[in-house]
Every structure is written in C-alpha cells, then in structure tokens.
C-alpha cells in the first residue's frame, strides 16, 4: 500500500461537485426568507410553490456572491450567462424542473490551491460554478406510508462548484474540500455550516490500472456533509471498485450513498433508464448580464485572499508551509494572528501558540476564534514575557489558562499576582540544586555510570522544587557543572 492507502498498481481519480448555499437573506427567485430551522412551509412564496401565473425574479445578492467567488479563483466571469431548466419529477420540486445553468454558467474555469499535511501544495482546476435553486425537503417518518414535503428550502440559492477529475486520493479530496470551505466563508458567500447542509459534496470516484490513459467508469457518492465522511466514503469506494475489477467484474456507472454506520457505499436502486434532464434555456428568465463596471467594483472590494496570505506568511514571515496553510483556513483565525503580530509578537511563536494552545483550548470548549476569551493583545503580552525570559514556556501555559479564565487583564498582572516570574538568579537555583542533589545519591551514581536519563530525573526534581519557575536551561547547566566538579 502507498502512503495514501491506494494499493500499488492502481490510480484513483476523483472529482467533486459541491453545493454551496449562499448567504442571502431571501431566496434566489422570491422574497421568502432563507433562515434555517423555521416551522415547515412557513417560508414559501407562491413562486417557490410553483403556483401558476407566478414568475421568478433573480436576487442580485446571489449573483454578486457567484461573481465574488469567480473573481477569487481567477475564473472567467461570464458577462452574459443563461438560466436553464433541468427537468425531473420529484415531490419536493414543485415546478417539475429546477432552475439552474447549463451551457453558459456564470463562472468558468479557475483554480483552488490546497496544502497537504506534508506542506506540499496542489492546485485543483475547476470546470465551472453555476447558480441554481435548491429543492424542498421530503420527510419520510411523519406519517406511515406517506411522505411529507416541506418547501422552506425550495428556492434557496446555491452555487454548484465543479472540479476537473484531477484529485488522486481521499486525502487530496478532503484537503480541497477544506480549502473550498475556508474560501467560501472567507468571501462571506456561505456560512459553511455542514450540519445544516450549507456545504454538501458529491464525489465522483473512478480507479484505473497505473499508467492507463483512459479514465475508469465512475460512481458518484451523493450528499456528503462532513470531511470525515468524504474521506471514509472515498476509501470504501476505492477498496470496493478495485476488488470488483480484480475479480473481473466491470464497474457500472451508478449513484451511491455512504452509510457512516457500516462504513460502506451502496448503490441507490438503479434507475430503469439513465437520467435525461432535457435542459433548455428558461423562457421565464432572459440572459443574466453583468457589466464591466459591476465586475470591477466587486474585484476591487475583494479582501486579501487566503492563498495570497499563505504565500506572504511563508515568504515574508518565514512560517513553515503547513503552519501558514493552517492559519489561513479561517479568515477570523488569520485576522487574529495578524492582530497578535500587530501587538508586537514574533510570527513563529505567535503561530505556534495559535495552532497549539489556543486551538486546543477553543476545540475543547467548542468555541470559534471569534469567541476566544484571550484577546490578541493579551496573547502578545504573554509571548513577550516568554521571549524576554520572564517566564518559561511551561509557565506560559499557566498564564494562558489564567487569562482564558479571565483571572486578570494581562499576562503581567497574572505573573505578578501569582508570583510566577522565572527564577534566573543563579544563587537561588544553586541552592535548590544542592538540596535535590543531597537526596539523589542513586541518580548521581547512575549518571556517573553513563545513564544520561538520570540527569533528566534530577532536572525534573529541581524544577518541581522550584514550582516550575526555575529557568530549565540554567538548572541543566548548574547540575552538570556540580556533578562534573564531583559535588
């Protein structure tokens, strides 16, 4: 097996289609609210329910968000794009067609860069991103043998973002999905809420023998709404496809669902015939035209993008590639980081603390960085006391904890109140060292017999006796000197 979990002699080809729910207040073609969690069918305009005689009117906010995305990924933003009908019948689709885009989508091409765990980066080419409306929701457990339909979601604006089939492993697919998730939140076009279905991925997977030019037959895993499920579903699907082919059974194109409980993918009941959506331009909606001035105004208003920040963090701040990539997964995180630097901290320790202590504490309390109780200025103050030697890194964690709990307004105040200042006075440290050595005959003998580990035990004892406040380097040096002198 290779590192990515793909057996030797096989190649995996993956493409993603992601449905990103746009953050507009109202629906794409009506003035009904898009707020999540309302009572069923209370946010449905006559247009959303497809009453005869009603006409859709496009939401400018949805168009602007699509354009912002296109500009951010270096794509071609079509100045004239076409709305089309995708025809199929399902009870949660009242019109009998979904309004989407087909031949001339608003965004074409572009690329998204992602960083893998080893710090290498890769760019995914996108085919397109098009505007469309979401369908309603079917509920199957409301009444026995009957389905319930809630149209609150019908007409919610989506941007469907389609990659080329150019990802080579589950790890790459997840890294891309995370980068895309970070970007749409960065641009403030999607709230990124996976549980509420604001970011849903369909994953196309095929395998082929290494070196083969032709793509294998793909199967599409539908509706994955967590990064962990994307990874597990692809792994399961790849295993299954390779096993089938090795047993001489060809892959049949199909739509499959991932069952997190069993960890397996299974084909949905095969349709008797291939879907034929009979797309055609929607006669209700003339061409969507955006002007040069509108596009340029939106380009000028774009924030610094995560990829630009990532490169700047590496080249100007000297951060390792992976750290830089981690900091830009979330715009609020990057802004916090930059605020810590603005308050005087050095980049590397600031990054280490943010991705280490701060991220762990946030995770533990399920808080976002926006809700971090420790302000950037407080963190910078703490880092300053570590870098000038007032406290050790370890005591720094104690101070951080105190700041987190709101014990004091600044690191200095915590250090002062708790008497945490590092002992750097050689005389004071020597005194503690001598006390510890006096009761460490065994360790001293071990050390002299060549056991370096024994020294660490003595250092530990001294640190403990000093309440963690002695400077560890000084402690180390003093003990070595004492023992070398035969003390």
């Amino acid at each position, binding site marked *: 097996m290779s590192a990515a979990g793909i057996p030797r002699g096989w190649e995996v080809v993956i493409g993603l289609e992601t449905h990103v729910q746009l953050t507009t*207040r109202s629906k794409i073609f009506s*003035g009904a609210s898009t707020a999540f969690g309302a*009572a069923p069918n209370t946010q449905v305009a006559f247009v959303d329910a497809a*009453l005869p005689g009603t006409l859709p009117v496009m939401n400018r906010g949805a168009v602007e968000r699509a354009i912002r995305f296109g500009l951010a990924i270096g794509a071609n933003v079509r100045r004239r794009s076409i709305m089309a009908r995708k025809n199929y019948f399902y009870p949660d689709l009242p019109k009998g067609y979904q309004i989407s885009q087909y031949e001339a989508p608003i965004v074409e091409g572009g690329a998204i860069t992602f960083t893998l765990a080893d710090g290498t980066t890769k760019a995914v080419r996108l085919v397109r991103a098009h505007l469309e409306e979401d369908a309603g929701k079917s509920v199957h457990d409301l009444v026995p043998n009957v389905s319930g339909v809630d149209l609150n979601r019908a007409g919610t604006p989506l941007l469907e973002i389609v990659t080329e089939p150019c990802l080579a492993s589950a790890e790459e697919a997840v890294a891309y999905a995370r980068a895309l998730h970070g970007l749409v939140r960065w641009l403030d076009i999607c709230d990124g809420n996976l549980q509420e279905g604001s970011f849903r991925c369909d994953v196309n997977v095929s395998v082929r023998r290494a070196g083969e030019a032709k793509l294998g037959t793909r199967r599409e895993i539908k509706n994955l709404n967590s990064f962990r499920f994307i990874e597990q579903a692809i792994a399961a699907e790849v295993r299954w496809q390779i096993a089938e082919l090795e047993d001489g059974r060809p892959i049949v194109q199909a739509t499959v669902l991932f069952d997190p409980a069993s960890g397996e993918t299974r084909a949905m009941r095969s349709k008797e015939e291939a879907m*034929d959506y009979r797309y055609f331009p929607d006669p209700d909606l003339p061409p969507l035209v955006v002007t040069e001035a509108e596009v340029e105004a939106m380009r000028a208003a774009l924030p610094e993008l995560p990829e630009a920040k990532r490169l700047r963090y590496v080249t100007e701040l000297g951060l390792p590639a992976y750290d830089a990539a981690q900091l830009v997964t979330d715009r609020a995180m990057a802004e916090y980081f930059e605020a810590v630097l603005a308050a005087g901290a050095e980049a590397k320790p600031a990054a280490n603390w943010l991705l280490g202590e701060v991220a762990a504490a946030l995770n533990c309390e399920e808080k976002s960085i926006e809700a971090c109780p420790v302000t950037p200025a407080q963190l910078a103050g703490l880092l300053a006391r570590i870098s000038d030697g007032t406290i050790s890194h370890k005591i720094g964690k104690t101070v951080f904890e105190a700041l987190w709990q709101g014990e004091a307004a600044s690191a200095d105040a915590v250090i002062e109140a708790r008497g945490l200042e590092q002992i750097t006075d050689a005389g004071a440290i020597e005194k503690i060292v001598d006390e510890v050595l006096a009761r460490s005959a065994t360790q001293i003998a071990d050390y002299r017999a060549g056991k370096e580990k024994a020294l660490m035990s003595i250092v530990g004892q001294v640190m403990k006796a000093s309440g963690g406040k002695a400077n560890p380097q000084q402690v180390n040096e003093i003990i070595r000197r004492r023992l070398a002198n035969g003390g």
Partner: protein
Amino acid sequence: MSLSSNDIERIAHLARIAVTPSDVHDVEAKLTGIFRLIEEMRAVDTQGVAPMTHGLDMTLALRPDAVTEPDRREALLANAPASEAGHFLVPKVIE
C-alpha cells in the same frame, strides 16, 4: 429525423404523460411533423449569428436581496389534497 415508437414511449415517460398504445402512432406522427419544422429551420444559414436563448431582446431583471414575503402556509396547504403537521402529504417516495 424520424422517431420510433420506443422514442415516443420514453419521451412520454420522461414527461409523465400517459400515452396509450393506441395513441402512440398518432403522437409519433405529430412529433415527427414538429421535427420536420425544426429541420427546415436548421437549413437556414446562421453562420455568424449568436445563438438566441430568449424570445425577447431583454436582460434579466435583478431585485435587491430582501425578505418581502409573509408566511403563507395556511393558504398553500389549503390548496393541497392532503397535509399534516404543516407538511404537504404525497405518496411515499423514499428510495
């Protein structure tokens, strides 16, 4: 272009229109007539003419992103053959 009766059955199924076996021949003749019309139009030289996607020479109107619609559930559900707990009820559709 000519259509087979299989084509007719497939198109009818996709459109969820019931076409009885005795109607297939009649529908086939009508649809073939429409296709003949399309063939005639295809014969016109349109080299250099941008494809038209809409009958009127106008562009899409955009509205501001604002919530303007009230809750209309009562009225909508009153229109439905069956409803319960705020939902439209339909025959079971789970796969």
